[in-house]
Structures are given as C-alpha cells and as structure tokens.
C-alpha cells in the first residue's frame, strides 16, 4: 500500500507534503478541545486560563463530593443501562428477523426502524413531549428510558445486521440438520459468534443515551437530570472548573468505550479471518 503514494516527481512530492500538512492542521483542530480542557481541569485556579498557576485535584473533589453531580451520574448510568438493554433486546430480535425477511415492504420497515437516527432530535423530543405528557411519562425515568431506547435502536440494528451479514448461515443450518431446535441453535451456535457485534451495538446504544441531552431537556424533572443535562445548565450559566473535571471524566469514559469497540472489531476480524 505504501508504494502507491511514493512520490515520483517533484510536483507529486509537493502535493503529498501539502496534503500531510493540511491533514495535520485538521488533526490539531480535531484534538484541540480535548487537549485544551484536560490540563485546565487540574488547575488550582478558578480562572480557566493558561498558564496554570498550580496543579490541584480540587475540581475532581468538587465533582465527587457534590450531591448534584453524583445524582446526575447515577441518573445517566440508570437511563443508559436500561435503555441500552431494552434497545439490545428489540434491536437484536429485529436484526435477526430482517436478515431473513424478504418482502416488498422491507424498505419501508427499514426506513421506519432507522428514522430515529435521521429525524432531528428536537423534533422527536417535542413530539414525544406532547404525547407522553398526558400519559404521565414526563418527569420520570420510564419516559426517558423509552425515548432513549427509540433513539439508540437504529445503531443497534445497523451494528448487529452488519455482524449477521458476515455470519455464515450454513453453521445454523448444520445445527438444524443435526436436530437442534431453533432456540438451541441460536443459543449455542449463533449467539457466541455474533456476541462481539452485540457488544458493539450495546456500547453504541449506551453512548447514544449517555450523551443525549435534548430529550432530557424536555422530559426530565429535576430528579432525572443527567450528566449532559447538568453540563448544559452549567455551560449556560457560567463555566466553572468543576465542569472541566466532569468533561475530562466523560472523555475518559469515551476513550474506554472507543478502545472496547476497537478490541471487539479486531476480535471480530480475527474470527472472520479464521473462518475463511
């Protein structure tokens, strides 16, 4: 692969160097917010400026000691876990069905299943707010879990469907021909092989819910405020250094999720490589 860009002429070399320089600048632009905010969270000063007057962990202590932030963390985890489990159950079943279902209605069903990803969240939030309010589903966990599940399911369906596509269906047929009932085939043959794909789907779902703030703005009562929701009001009012500490904690969580995804992807590719 490396041979195909090895520049042959001076002008090609210039073009390649220009690309590298431009791309490097864009990489800096992409990483700038993360790089800027991490050191500030360790600052001993209340002002968010460089150079740092000294290092301290006081903003992390502030975060961990604040009932408001801890409650928000708890809410984020509760809603994230519940909605990713629910969207996993619904999304996996639907992906298994979609992989086998042949019908002229399939494109329409797919469009409906994937549409929560496309429709602007503010529209979903407004529609759900109008619909849930008379049903008593605002100001409690259940409403938020339901709407986050709806927003997360398309990611589960896409991830799991991609995994199923690479799954060799003859294995399932072999199990069936040896007398295994469908459920046993699923549990003993299909599930272990698509598990990494399911795990990626669950992570996507959790990340979607964990980062979602618009529906929380509309549906949550004061008791259900999540981390992004508290950050939203914090940024609106005045950015305190505590917010930078929260931001770093959230970034660390993102890094963990991204690394897990990458590991799962590699494992999946290795499995595919072995199968071939």
């Amino acid at each position: 692969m490396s041979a195909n860009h090895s520049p042959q002429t001076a002008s090609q070399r210039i073009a390649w160097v220009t690309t590298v320089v431009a791309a490097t600048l864009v990489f800096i632009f992409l990483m700038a917010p993360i790089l800027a905010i991490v050191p500030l969270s360790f600052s001993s000063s209340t002002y968010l400026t460089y150079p740092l007057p000294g290092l301290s962990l006081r903003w992390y202590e502030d975060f961990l000691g604040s009932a408001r932030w801890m409650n928000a963390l708890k809410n984020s985890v509760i809603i994230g876990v519940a909605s990713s489990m629910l969207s996993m159950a619904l999304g996996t079943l639907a992906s298994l069905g979609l992989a086998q279902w042949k019908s002229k209605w399939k494109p329409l069903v797919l469009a409906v299943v994937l549409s929560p990803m496309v429709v602007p969240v503010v529209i979903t939030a407004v529609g759900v707010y109008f619909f849930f309010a008379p049903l008593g589903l605002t100001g409690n966990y259940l409403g938020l879990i339901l709407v986050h599940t709806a927003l997360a399911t398309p990611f589960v369906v896409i991830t799991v469907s991609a995994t199923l596509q690479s799954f060799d269906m003859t294995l399932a047929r072999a199990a069936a021909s040896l007398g295994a009932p469908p459920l046993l085939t699923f549990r003993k043959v299909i599930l272990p092989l698509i598990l990494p794909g399911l795990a990626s789907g669950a992570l996507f779902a959790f990340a979607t819910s964990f980062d979602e703030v618009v529906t929380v703005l509309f549906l949550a009562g004061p008791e259900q405020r999540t981390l992004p929701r508290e950050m939203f009001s914090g940024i609106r009012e005045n950015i305190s250094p505590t917010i930078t500490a929260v931001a770093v904690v959230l970034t660390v969580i993102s890094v963990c999720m991204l690394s897990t995804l990458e590991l799962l992807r590699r494992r999946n590719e290795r499995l595919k490589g072995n199968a071939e």
Partner: protein
Amino acid sequence: MTAAFVAGADVPLKRRLKRAERARQFRALGLVLPLLAFLLFTFVVPLAGMIWKSADDWEVPQVMPQTVAALKQWNGQGLPDEAAFAALAADIRTAREAGTLAVAAKRLNYIINGYRTTLLSTGRKLKEQPAPGTAKDTLIGIAPAWGERESWTAIKSASGPVTSYYLLAAVDLTRNADGAIVAAPPDQAIYRDVFIRTFTIGFGVTALCLILGFPVAYLLANLPTGRSNLLMIFVLLPFWTSLLVRTCAWIVILQSEGIVNGSLQWLGVIDEPLRLIYNRFGVYMAMTHVLLPFMILPLYSVMRGISPAYMRAAASLGAPPTTAFLRIYLPQTIPGIGAGCLLVFILAIGYYITPALVGGAADQMISSFIAFYTTETVNWGLASALGAVLLLSTLVLALVYGKLALGRQTTGGLKN
C-alpha cells in the same frame, strides 16, 4: 388433502419447501414486530401527533361552542346577528366560570394582537347574561372591538376543526379577514429568515467540513493500514467525545479570556480580545468540529476503494498531476462527497445544543425556535408547524441519502 399433508409423502417437495419458507418468513416478521410496535408508540405516533397539532384548532370550538355554532350561518359580511352576540355573551360567562377563557383568548390573540385584552376584560365586566335583544349593544358597550367585523372573522376562522394558520405562519403567511392568503405582518414574519439562516449555516458547515475533511480522508486512505489506523484515533476520539464536552471546550478556547485570545494578546498581535464566541464564527467553529467526522468517514471509505492504478495509468499516459487528480481521482470520490455532504447537512440543519450554547441571539437555528415555542411560550401549534417544515426538509434529504448510501451498502447487511 389434509391427511396427505400430515403424511407428507404425497405433497410434492416443491410445495413443502414453499410452506416451510412461508413459515420462516412469518417467524422473521414476528421477530421484527416487537421493535416496530415499540417505535410506533415511542416515535411514529408522537411525530404524527406533532404534525396533527400543527393543524389542530381545538381551543375556540371547545371554549366557545355556542358562538361557533351561531357563526356557522354568518357569511362574513357586516356584523353577525343578535343571536351570535347572545351566544358569545353566554360562552364568555361559562368559560370565565370554568377558567378556560384565557385558552381561547390566547388562540385569538395570535390572529389579532390585543384580542386577549378584549376577551378577558369583557369576561370581567359582563356581570350577567344580557336581556334578550340587548346582547349586541351590551357587548359593544363593554368593548367597542365587538362592533368590528375582524373580531368576528377571527372567531370564525378559528372555529376548527383544522386550521392552516400555524403552517402558514411557519412560512410567514397569514389569512386576512376575507380568508385570502397574504404576507404576514412584518413583526411576525421572521421564520423565512430563520429557515434561510438555518440552511445558510448548514451549507457553510458542510462546505467547511468538505474542505477540511478531504485532505484528511485522502491521507488516511493512502497511508499504510497500520499508520492510518493509528491516525484514525484523532478522528474517532473527538467523534466519541460527548457533544457537551466539545462545546464546553470551544467556549473555553474562544471566550474573551480564553486560550486563543490569551495567546494572541501575550504575543502582542492584538490589544483587545477578539469576539470569537457567542456569534456566527463560534457556531461555525464548534459545529464544523462536531460534524467533521461524519464527512471524513464516508469519504475515507470511498477513497479506500479507489485503485491507485488509475492515477498511475493517467500519469503514464502523460496527464499532469493536477489533470489526473481533477479528471480521474476526483470523479471517483463523488459518491463519498455526496454521502458526506448530505449527512453533514441533514445533521446540521437539525442542530440545537451547539448553536444554543455558542451562538448569539442572531445565530439561533430553527430547532431553538421549536424548543422555545414548546417550553417557553407554549404555542404548541406554531412549534409543531415549524417542526413539520423541518421534518419534511430532513426526510426529503434523507431519502436522497438513502438512495446514495444503500447503493454503496454502507448500512451493513440491511439490503438484500
């Protein structure tokens, strides 16, 4: 026939296979149904409800049923008859006791500014039902507005069951007293500007993402796999970082005591801090940052599939590098450019959080007006109408995107 089927022997294999296949299809559909039912409840019906709210005209028929019935006969010319005045007086008194008069007053105030005062003060001053034959004089005596035709056409136009008022208002149109569609008064005609602003910001962000994303995707696609996977982290890490974290970081970087202004002042380039945030510049900066990965990833996946042989062939045939790039390479990246641009544009026009936090009052996009009318002023009709227009624009673009993306199978195993 049934016996033969149970025995299985006489039924041709072809038919049995068909039966088995049909059973399989039913089972497959059964697996999809739970999700469909769930989405129907949490997504499809709520959206349909929102669209219905943009046309639903329930306030006046519910609060003033007698007046609505009495005005059915009225042809809209001159003033309605005494019976209509009596019905209005009765409705106002009933509604005032039930505490619902303000609901109708709010609805009618959208049509004529000041209607709320007229209706509520009439409710206050109307101590008892006027004697038969005196309703007209009594009401006009309390509020002269009842002697104007427009007050009555407003009630008639709001008598439901559906109205085009909100949808027209969402595109700066209204109906005059005669029911003709005309331009809305200038103080209410703001939404076309908001839509134009939304699409302008969408185009701007898309263009910036394309300019910044193209070299990155090109570099990643042409590096050896190991190194490009490593550099991919710089694209994926921001992509996975919380939107709120990134928005917060941009405020820290760009605010007047922020990192950019601090460095520039320290270097002596500027004396006064530049205004980099809470304006259009900040919106472009933060939104481009958030949406850039959505441009890079589809571009990268298309570029990865372009064989280097084409460029070498062009070079060997004597094409200068610029010509080879413009005429051989670039056309092959069009599917990626199309998919990336559409994706970024669709996401950009629906953005709410980032403009709300880093934009000024003149940078708010359509989403923030939808949110404002839902939670602040509780004008649900207008919120729904603006939402319906945005939804329609998004769905049209998504349809185009679907055609492009499904053609390239980027949605995994979803297309047979």
